């Protein structure tokens, strides 16, 4: 199933279900925003170096 087909299928769900999903998405988003980043020491050396330098390059 591609993205467009998935969107169309999801649009056909009952409104009650879509509201419940939206509120779940809100909650997941909040949890992700509030999640603490992994400590640098848990990363492998190269990834740790990248993280110390400010993230992905």
């Amino acid at each position: 199933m591609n993205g467009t087909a998935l969107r169309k299928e999801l649009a056909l769900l009952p409104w009650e279900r879509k509201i419940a999903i939206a509120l779940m998405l809100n909650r997941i988003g909040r949890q992700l925003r509030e999640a603490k980043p992994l400590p640098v020491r848990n990363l492998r050396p190269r990834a740790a170096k990248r993280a110390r330098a400010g993230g992905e390059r």
Partner: protein
Amino acid sequence: MRSDRLARWLAADPGSESHSLGPGATKGCAWRALLAPALAALNELKRLGHLSEYALGGGMGAMRYTEPFATFDLDVFFIPSVKGISAGIPGMYGYLKKMGHAVVKEGILIGGIPVQFLATDPLTEEAVRNAHSVEYAGVKTRIITAEHLVAMAVRTGRKKDAARIEMLCGTVGIDKGRLRAILARHGLTAAYAKITGRKQ
């Protein structure tokens, strides 16, 4: 997660034992009726004459027609029952606070959902008057039509409104003639062409 697995996950009952969010995911609330307390309160406000008519718009209203997406509050467009700059909002808030609902930022929290009240102008009044009557978990309510939601998004014109227009036009059978008439009536034809990059 592959999209067919995602579709199955989203379509499953989020409160069920088998759902990966776990059986406690919707603890303390019947997920089928999350908006029911807010909608019942709106109907009560109408019955008591605090507002003369209302309809749901914004993200939660648009979701009637589109796929689900993250949205934070319930936007209620209402035709005030009293004329004047306050539009009867102090009376509505007074009643809702008396019923134990808390005021948060620019809305009021009803059954855990932030509800924002927006008094109508000519476009939104037309939208409220032409709204569909629907039922949500046994509670009657009204939702603004997809064509009026598009026109309202065109007028607001933020990036998320452009995305919402794409969603509404992409997933719903929009009545193009009706949309064209609404846009023309409210002087939004050029704004629609600009925001969507397509001619009507």
